[in-house]
Structure formats: C-alpha cells, structure tokens
C-alpha cells in the first residue's frame, strides 16, 4: 500500500474506533438501563414529605424523591449533591455553598437558592426534630444573595453542618409548592414534587408506592431503573419469603435467623451497614434514672454493668449481626470513637463484690436487700423495672436472667412507642430502660442529646438518665464550636472517659442492619437514602 493510502486507512480506523467506543459504552449502559425494582418496606409512611419528620417509615419511602445540599459517600464523608462546591469561612461560623444551575423540580420549575432558604427557615427548623435540635439554636441566619449561592451564618463556629445536609437530615423541598401553606397539611405531601432521581407516580395507602424515573435528573445518565415500586409488608418473615419467591428484589433488613440461609444462597447478595433513614450508627443503650435513690450509687451501676454479658446479647438477640459497644460513641464514627476506655467488663464475681460493698446483702430471698445503703431504707429489695419497646423484649429477657444471677430482681415492662416516650421523658416513671440511641453522622447530632444537661426534658429520646455534669456540658459546647476533626477528637475522648467513669448508661451493642437483594440487581448504595440512584436490574 502506498503511504498516502495507509494514512487514510489509519485515520479511518482511528475515527471509527473513537466513534465506536462511546457507542460501545452507551450499549453497555443501555443493557443496564430499564427494569423495575420492587422494594419491601415495613410500614406505611403515611405521607411523603421527609422534611417535616424523622420517621424512618417516611424517610425510607420518600428520600429517593429529593436531594440535600450534600450527600455522603461510603466512608461517611460529605460529597456534592445540589451544591457543587463550598467554602468554610471564619473558622466555621460561615459556610458558603455554590449550587448547581442545572437542577429542575419534577414539575419543570428551576431549582434556586430561594428553595434552600425557604426549606430551612419554614420547614426544617420548625418540624425536623434533629435539625431543629442541633442547628436551631446555633444558626444566626441564612442568606441567598443570588440564585446559585446560599450562606449559613452561625453565632459560634458550628462543626457538624456538612454532615447534616443530606436527604436524611435536610431534604430540600420546593418553595413554589409549600410557600404560604402549612407544610404538615399541604396536599403535596401525598403527591410530592422533588428534585430526586425518581418522581412520584402513585401511592396506594397501606399497600404500595410507585415511582418512575426522572428523565431530567441532574446527574446525567442516572437513574438506570425505569420504575421503582415499594410494597408495604409489615411482617419481616413474609418479606424474606417474598424475596425468595421472586416477588420483591430488595429488603431493607433481614431478620437474624434468616441471614445464614440467604448468605449461602447464590441468588442473593447482602451488605451490612450502620446507616438507616430513621437514624444511623445506633447503639442499644440501657439508661439509669439517676433520680431514683436505688440507682444513685455509681458502684451499683458499675455492678450492673459488670453483671451483663454483652456477648450473649450479641449472640442471642442480634445473631451475631453487630458489635459489642466498646465506647459511648459508635465505632462507625472512627475519629470520635475512643479506644481503651475502662468500660465495665463482664465479671460476675466482681459485680457481687461491688453490690455487697454498697450494702446490698444476700439474705434468705434470691433478691438482695439493703443493709446500710445511703438514701435507701433498710430491708428494701433490690428490684427495678426495665422499660422497652415490645420489639426489644429479648433485651428484657436477658436483663432479667443475667441480673437475676447476681441477686437483682428485674421486671421488664414492654410499652408501645407511643406510650414509652411520655412515660420515660415526660413522667420519668422508670428505673431503667433500653433505647436505640442513634449517634447520627456526627456526635453533635445524636450523642450530645444524651449527656448535656440542657437536654433533660419531655422531648423524646433526649437525656433519659437526667445526667448532669458541668464539665461534660462545657466539653460538648467546645466540641460543637471546633471545626477541625483532629481538634475535636481529644474533646470527645475526655467526654467519653468521664461518662464511662460515671456510668449514667450502659452501652450494650452496636446494631447495623443487613440489606439483601436479588443478584439480578446491583449498584446499590446501602449507606444513603438515595440507595437506588445508581441501581440497575438485569432483565
């Protein structure tokens, strides 16, 4: 071949290859595109507005319809979502966000900074419990100087903001839909308009929610699925049956007894995560009502801690799915979780010794009686109650058995959630209880409320122990004002050392959940509420 001809051939080859590669890539995507994903959810959400509630049921169902300013990656760090970039100014007192300009609401209206300002001021800070509790007091104001800029100004440097801006903690709703109405009764709560990867199709109460692909989603190419259907299946056993029978493709949680079977079944994949739309990084925590005379002595509380075999809880209640808690802060928050703390170790002999030392003696009865215990009349039996959600009755059983062996009479009292909250936090009518305290993505969000004295009150799931320690209060205030993690770590370490010493709570086990899905599908992000943003199902 002559040189000229060879060049032409080469060029032609090059051109066809460079043209073919994108087409080949498109074809790859094309094979992943389409399909319907069927998800099992445990409870009817009631409505589909995640900005006015922290209810797990609503968030599970509705987060795919919205976005937050930021998202979170697998490690829990903030990544851009509606905001494409940000700067932190004045040591963390001012946060400036630059928003994308290619985002539209499902009804075609353009998304602007006015939506963000409106959502925070009129919706989140009024109705979203976690955002209100954490940001509400600290925020000085929000400015939206132009369509693409939002500025958060705080009274003091505010550390946790970046982790509180995802669809779970701060989903952004449309100003043009909710302006001038009561967000709790607006009809859009049943027919939502969001910016998310999926748009609303239909909602049959108590039965199912249908979503369709958002063709104008700002992340090009996403989502892959054409349709997403959520089925309400309250019974977890039926959920597993439905997965195995091919009726659903994705489960948010797998009951312990069924996990081994599904794991060894090649038709399914599983992934464990500590994230849940209702709350992440949760620890099952036993609270002591420090106002009760019996529980005032820290040695007694330590004895209880040492009488508890937490490995047994992990085995028998969680079937191994989880970890024994080794610090008051979840191990998922790696930078804040302290190591080497003096947590009560399982030692029955030591527990018995402590109880004797305090003055609780073993006499004729199996239950110890007080002989010379300060603040407790002689002859009082060491009998305590233990409040819990009915779903946590196994914890009650184990508490009763384990503490029974050291002479403590425990009466488990199951209370439905609606009754539990007022009984514990309003009436404070309990000796001990167990609560799934979720730390959240940052200790400021879920940990402060357990120990800060300002958090003692009727609001549910705050400081159940009624723990007061001025130094711990100061440390928490300090931590929330320090933005750099390496400076916050030592503060949280001091806090954890103190509360482990004073034991207002006993931290039992960390409770991740296991997602399961059909092997025909994939691309799930188990660590976020936008779990199906990049999911696909092979046809």
């Amino acid at each position, binding site marked *: 071949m002559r040189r000229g001809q060879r060049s032409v051939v080469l060029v032609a080859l090059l051109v066809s290859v460079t043209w073919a590669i994108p087409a080949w890539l498109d074809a790859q995507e094309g094979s992943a595109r389409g399909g319907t994903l069927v998800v099992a959810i445990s409870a009817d959400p009631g409505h589909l507005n995640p900005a006015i509630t922290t209810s797990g049921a609503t968030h599970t169902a509705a987060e795919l319809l919205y976005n937050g300013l930021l998202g979170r990656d697998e490690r829990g760090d903030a990544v851009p979502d509606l905001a494409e970039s940000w700067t932190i100014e004045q040591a963390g007192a001012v946060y400036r966000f630059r928003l994308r300009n290619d985002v539209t609401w499902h009804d075609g209206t353009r998304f602007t900074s006015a939506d963000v300002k409106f959502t925070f001021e009129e919706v989140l800070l009024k109705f979203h419990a976690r955002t209100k509790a954490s940001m509400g007091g600290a925020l000085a104001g929000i400015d939206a100087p132009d369509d693409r800029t939002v500025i958060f100004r705080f009274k003091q440097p505010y550390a946790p903001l970046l982790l509180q801006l995802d669809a779970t903690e701060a989903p952004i709703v449309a100003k043009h839909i909710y302006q001038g109405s009561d967000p709790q009764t607006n009809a859009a709560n049943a027919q939502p308009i969001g910016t998310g990867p999926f748009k609303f199709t239909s909602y049959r109460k108590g039965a199912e929610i249908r979503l369709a692909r958002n063709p104008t989603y700002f992340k090009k190419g996403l989502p892959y699925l054409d349709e997403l259907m959520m089925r309400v299946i309250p019974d977890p056993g039926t959920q597993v049956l439905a997965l195995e029978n091919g009726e659903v493709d994705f489960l948010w949680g797998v009951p312990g*007894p069924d996990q081994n*079977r599904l794991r060894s079944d090649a038709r399914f994949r599983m992934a464990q995560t500590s994230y849940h739309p209702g709350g992440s990084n949760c620890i099952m925590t036993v609270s002591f009502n420090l106002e009760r005379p019996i529980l005032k002595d820290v040695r007694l509380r330590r004895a209880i801690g040492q009488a508890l075999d937490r490995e047994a809880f992990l085995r028998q209640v969680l079937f191994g799915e989880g970890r024994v808690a080794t610090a008051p802060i979840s191990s998922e928050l790696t930078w804040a979780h302290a190591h080497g703390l003096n947590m009560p170790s399982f030692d029955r002999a030591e527990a018995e010794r402590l109880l004797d030392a305090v003055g609780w003696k073993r006499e004729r009865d199996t239950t110890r009686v007080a002989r010379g215990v300060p603040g407790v009349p002689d002859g009082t039996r060491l009998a305590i109650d233990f409040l819990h959600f009915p779903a946590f009755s196994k914890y009650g059983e184990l508490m*009763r058995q384990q503490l029974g062996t050291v002479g403590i009479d425990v*009466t*488990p009292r199951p209370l439905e959630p609606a009754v539990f909250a007022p009984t514990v936090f309003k009436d404070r009518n309990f000796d001990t209880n167990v609560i799934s305290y979720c730390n959240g993505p940052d200790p400021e969000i879920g940990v402060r409320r357990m120990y800060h004295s300002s958090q003692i009150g009727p609001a549910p799931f705050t400081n159940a122990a009624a723990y007061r320690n001025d130094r711990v209060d100061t440390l928490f205030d300090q931590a929330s004002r320090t933005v750099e993690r390496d400076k916050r770590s030592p503060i949280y370490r001091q806090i954890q050392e103190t509360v482990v010493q004073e034991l207002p709570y006993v931290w039992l086990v960390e409770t991740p959940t296991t997602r399961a899905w059909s092997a025909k599908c994939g691309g799930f992000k188990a660590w976020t509420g936008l779990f199906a943003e990049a999911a696909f199902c092979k046809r």
Partner: protein
Amino acid sequence: MSNVLRTPGGALGASLTLAFIVVAVLAHVIAPTDPYASIGSPLTPPSRTHVFGTDDLGRDVFSGVVHGARTSLTVTLAVIAIASVVGVAVGAVAGYRGGGVDDLLMRGTEAAQIVPRFFLAVIIIALFGPGLDRVVVVLGLTSWPAIARVVRAETLSLSRREFVDAAHALGARASRILLRHVLPNALPTALVVISLNAASVILLEAGLGFIGLGDPRAISLGYLANNAQRFLRVAWWMTLFPGAAIALAVLGLNLVGDALSDLADPRRGDRAARMA
C-alpha cells in the same frame, strides 16, 4: 356422662381434654424446668435432653408448652367462672320472672353476644396495657350470653312443672328451686356451651398473643406462638409444639362438646347455641 365416652368422637375428645387438664395442673411435676431459664444452647432441635427442643434464648420448649398450657387453662377457667356466674344469674332471673324483665334481659344478652370479643380485647389492652387479668375480664364479660340462654330455657321449662308450684306452696324459696332443680337439669346443655366457649377462649388468647398483645410476664401458648414466628424456617419445633398444643386442646373440647350436644338432644333445633 358415660354415654359420651361410648361415641368415638366423644372418647377422643374427652381423652384430649383430660390430658390437657392433667398436664396443666401437674405442670410443675411434669416439667420441673423453669420455662424462663436459658439452660440449653439456643435453637437446638428436639433431643433426649430437650424433648421439644430449645428456643432462641436456650429455653426448654417442652417446659414452655406445659406451663403455657397451665396459663391457658387458668385463663379459660377464670373466664368460664365469670361467664357462668353472670350467665346463670341473668338466665335464671329472666326465666323465672318472665315478662318485661325477661324481655329486657334478653335484649341485653343479645347486645352482649354481638360485641366482637377480639376487637374489644384489643381496645382494652391498648388503653389499659397488656395483662392476663384484662383478657380474663373482657372475655368473661362477653362470654356469658350463651350460658344465660341455656339457663333461661331450662328455667322456663321447669317453672311450668307442678312440683315447682308444689314446692312454692310449701314455702321453698326461689333460690333453692334454682339450685336444686334448674341448674342440675341445665348442666348438660350448659356443658356443651361451656366446652365450646373454652375452645374459643384458648384460640382468642393465642390470637392476641400472636399480634403481640399477650401478657409478656406469663408464658402462654399465644406468647410462644408469637415468639416462634421469626424462627419458622430455622426452628420448626418452636412453632409446631405450641401450635399443636392449641389445636389439640381446642379439638378435644370441641369433640366433647359435640358428643354432649348429640346426646342431649340429637334433633335439637336451636343450633345457635353451638359454636359460641
């Protein structure tokens, strides 16, 4: 009574019911193991040491079933007791007095019969909290109509007999007539109603336990069934034995009731008295 045992159905039913009662009464002898104690390793299938296997907390299922039967029996007896006292009182007064009083009491009986027991129990438990005493009171106060009807019918038929007038003339009080004549005659039919009632009480208690409204402090067959739900695939013994116990008890009571009613009046027209 012995006639009941002559029919195959009656014999089977009587033996099942008797077995249930004996097991329940002698629970501590038959199953001395504490049903609440975690003594075995969890989720082990039936074996020589644990005849019915162990549950998820390592508790002996056999012990649980036996003591659960005891609880069910206690609840049933209490319900029957309350229902009988109220039913006899209402039925006797209605049958004896007749007229307007009878009419009024019968309206009340109908109203009480209409009340759906399960749903009322659900509301009571939702308002007052779980507990066997609530279950007993609710079921007792809604189970008496069938007994009242039987007693009333018997009282009505008796009050027309001459010897009652004679006894009356001799100065015998109404209560004496009631005790000596009415009740013994009403007993066979009442037993039918009672046995069928007892069967449905056991099923209702199990149903309440299944949806989580049982008494968590009492090992009952309903609680066991509720607990066993999650483990259906991995530990079939946890759900089989409590379920079978319930089924056998209810079956036995029904067979006895059937046999009794066939005997009492094989051509009986008032079928509404059955299946209370």
